[in-house]
């Protein structure tokens, strides 16, 4: 009974590890694309901030 339960946990853990290892072994272009998407998000987020300049002063523009 205990062995069966431990085996089930080990099986689940092996599946998670296998999925992880499998994801590492994806074709390079897919890996690049996956990480590229994350980098694109980072760039796009910062670009949204950079395009917002100083708030126009009620008495005249500051920037």
């Amino acid at each position: 009974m205990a062995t069966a339960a431990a085996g089930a946990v080990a099986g689940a853990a092996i599946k998670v590890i296998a999925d992880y290892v499998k994801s590492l072994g994806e074709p390079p272009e897919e890996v690049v694309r996956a990480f590229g998407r994350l980098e694109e998000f980072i760039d796009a987020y910062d670009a949204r901030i950079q395009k917002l300049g100083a708030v126009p002063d009620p008495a005249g523009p500051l920037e």
Partner: protein
Amino acid sequence: MLARDRAWTTAAVALLLLALAVSCTSVRDTKSDVVGEYGDLVRRAEQVHAQWTQAAAAGRESAARVAAFNAFWVGVPASPTEEAALGFRGRSARIREQLQTTTPDSLAGIRAEIARLRAELDAWALTTTGGA
């Protein structure tokens, strides 16, 4: 006895594998989690910036307060601290650079900076009736 030994061995191996699995998934998830937090910060920043733009245009905020917000937003180069010199925009650019060259060890620092910026932004948030 043999069955009990086998059960203990299997349980020990299962625990080790479980720890490894958790470790693998946490390392993999963390960077995307932090990027998600950065996205939340950006959305909040756009919201606060829009509040100030509208309040200034409607004359609900004084020139001095708008200038103070702008100092927070774009920075003041001669400031004694790097944060004040960079302003929100410069600090966002710094987060961008750090996220692109990040290691698992440096993610905690980036996450802390995002949390600091979020707190500072919240302090600058305006209500519809004005007032930070």
